């Protein structure tokens, strides 16, 4: 072995306990990788000094791409020369995060030769993260990924790598094919993902039902959340079976309904579906008895983000219901209008949610040609500070009369 593995008395404390130990993982990689050995040394120093030792980014990448590689440099390059450059590569994950053992081994083989041997499965946006390599290795890694058909994800002010829940592949609640939609949008917007040209990042997340397992309503600029328009499918015998097995149908299900649109008399469960809010609670509680309706699609919401810059936002309703069928033209047309407007008018580092707050949802809707409807607000305004774009002058009314 050509390199030393440093002593790490503080980090060693994190090899104890029952949760998987990332320190053990770094040590395992450090047996072969001098980069990972230096990472251990630098991290131990951070633990001692209570501060990180990474410099602010740096622009690196592979030819033809403007994103997907995050430059990272140690601020202690003399002490830890093997991580003086320690860049991250974001690899676009397959939809639903499914892999074969063969595909994972191929990625490991590339990363053993060209990187630290450390990964994140997965990063917050959804990409497979290869953690730590040098600038020289970026092109060889890309050409080898190319050979096994894995491409790079997004970073910077671009469309970020879309992600989705497992949807119809393994969930009875999926109201549309999330993996198909995620893959389709990813393929349709390769240029927008690989060449940053927006005011800031733009994320799509596809959840198959209102349980929202990919947290799209909190984390996606456009949240596509499965729902249905018709009645919840019910199997009364299965409801009675839950009751017979001890479920308190009134306490556990009926009383938890936010719309108070259910009743149970010990024999039959009734739902006033016109008042159902599609919250999923009753379906979650009794998956054998209740299922989403058959007329399925998605609600499109827009604008969620974390606090930076102007405060955190949740996505809000843009289209209450849309059928989710390829090629998803209706949604993509809206996306094109939104991107055009935001690219022209958005400020640097202004997410679409903040942009809408600044210009007002009403004005935004007008610009993208969508009619305002009550589904878009939790309540109408409670202040009288209303803008009107025109006012009447003396004589206007008679002119209008004459035109008629």
């Amino acid at each position, binding site marked *: 072995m050509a390199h030393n593995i440093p002593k790490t008395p503080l980090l060693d404390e994190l090899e104890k306990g029952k949760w998987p130990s990332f320190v053990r993982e770094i040590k395992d990689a450090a047996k072969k990788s001098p980069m990972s050995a230096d990472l251990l040394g630098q991290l131990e120093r951070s633990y001692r000094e209570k501060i990180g030792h990474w410099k602010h980014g740096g622009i690196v990448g592979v030819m033809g791409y403007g994103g997907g590689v995050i430059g990272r440099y140690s601020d202690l390059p003399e002490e830890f020369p093997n991580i003086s450059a320690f860049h991250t590569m974001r690899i676009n994950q397959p939809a639903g995060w499914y892999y074969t053992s063969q595909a994972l081994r191929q990625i490991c083989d590339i990363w053993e030769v060209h990187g630290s041997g450390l990964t*994140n*499965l997965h990063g917050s946006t959804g990409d497979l993260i290869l*953690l730590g390599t040098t600038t020289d290795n970026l092109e060889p890694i890309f050409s080898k990924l*190319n050979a096994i058909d894995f491409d790079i994800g997004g970073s910077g002010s671009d469309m970020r790598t879309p992600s989705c829940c497992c949807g119809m592949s393994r969930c009875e609640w999926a109201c549309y094919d999330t993996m198909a939609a995620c893959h389709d949008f990813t393929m349709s917007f390769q240029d927008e993902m*690989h060449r940053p040209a927006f005011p800031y990042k733009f994320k799509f997340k596809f959840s198959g039902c209102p349980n929202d397992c990919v947290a799209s309503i909190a984390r996606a600029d456009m949240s596509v959340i499965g729902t249905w328009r018709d009645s919840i499918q019910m199997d009364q015998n299965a409801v009675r079976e839950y009751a017979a097995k001890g479920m308190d149908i009134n306490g556990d299900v009926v009383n938890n309904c936010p719309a108070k649109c259910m009743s149970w008399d010990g024999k039959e469960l009734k739902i006033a579906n016109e008042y159902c809010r599609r919250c999923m609670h009753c379906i979650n509680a009794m998956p054998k008895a209740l299922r989403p309706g058959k007329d399925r699609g998605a609600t499109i919401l827009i604008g969620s983000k974390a606090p930076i810059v102007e405060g955190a936002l*949740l996505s809000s309703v843009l289209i209450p219901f849309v059928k989710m069928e390829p090629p998803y033209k209706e949604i993509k047309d809206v996306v094109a209008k939104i991107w055009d407007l935001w690219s022209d008018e958005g400020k640097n580092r202004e997410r679409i949610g903040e942009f809408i707050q600044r210009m007002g949802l009403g004005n935004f809707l007008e610009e993208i040609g969508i009619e305002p409807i009550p589904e878009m607000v939790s309540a109408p305004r409670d202040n009288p500070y209303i803008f009107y774009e025109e006012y009447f002058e003396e004589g206007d009314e008679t002119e209008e009369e004459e035109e008629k």
Partner: protein
Amino acid sequence: MADAVVQRRTDYGPPHYSKFLPPIIKENYGKWKYHEIMRPGVMVHVSESGAQLFTVRASSGRLISIGKIRKYADLADKYCGGYLRFTSRHNIEFLLSKKENVDPLIKELEAMGHPVGGIGNAISAIVHTQGWVHCHSAATDASGVVKCVMDDLIEYFTETKLPGKLRIALACCLNMCGAVHCSDIAILGIHRRPPRVDHTRVVKMCEIPNVSASCPTAAIRPVTVDGHPSVEVLEERCMYCANCYTVCPAMPLNDPLNDGVSIWVGGKVSNARHEPMFSKLAIPFLPNNPPRWPEVTDAVRNLVEVWAKNARKYERMGEWIERIGWPKFFKMTGLEFRKEHIDDFKHAGLTYKRSTHLTF
């Protein structure tokens, strides 16, 4: 070389997921009828065709070496035809069509140090960020705090003894790569000292109008220092968001004496029952105390246990607090309510108590 450029293949996107789906999933795609939780960490999905798919979920730890990935691959080959997946919370899932393989797989995973669980009324794995392992703006470590918190709460991952789901997330600064702002419990690294402006580097590295514009509280303004353009920070207006540092590396906020952790509660993402909610401030500051962060693990355990003891079935942290009211929450958890808890950013007035609905 010119040929290489011409022939370069780009923008081919990720491999199509259909290459990675096990046959049982291909055959039953969109035909799943219902599922049951067989035991903690194990689900069976039943198809309209009668086919049964067994999912075994284990914690991965998120930061994984290629040695470990190869071991996962071996397990997938041995027990489920070489197919596996990962979840949105960094768990690994093995997808089995043979029920008899469930127990031996669990035994091997546990022997490898990967607890099985995280399904149903449990704490699933903590979604988290990079921390000191790989980030320049981290106010705390991520993997280390997560490891300590989950070591402490492991029983709530491997068993389903909670009233409802509990989701914990950690972000090591306000950028929130982990988007923790809608979690039952959010652990958030915070700075508490305004940026230190390095005037010699500002002029070389930063666009001054961008730096001024980056500040949400208008605390940054252009100045001339020693004849060179630079910026100054009105310190009393700074709330340490570090957005300026993101656009200008010459304004670092990282500071061992003042960086630490804040704890937020009551957020949720799911639409089930209550609408999605943001997490709200429970504890403004806890110190960074590596390697085991005892103040943080104690605080999180206290929150989990007070909620678990008092919440009704299905009630998430935020739903429970909404029912009992915030004064009771602070009383029951023994947490101190301070000036820092009262919002003073935009729309702050909406969080003032505007009724006499009080408990005594």
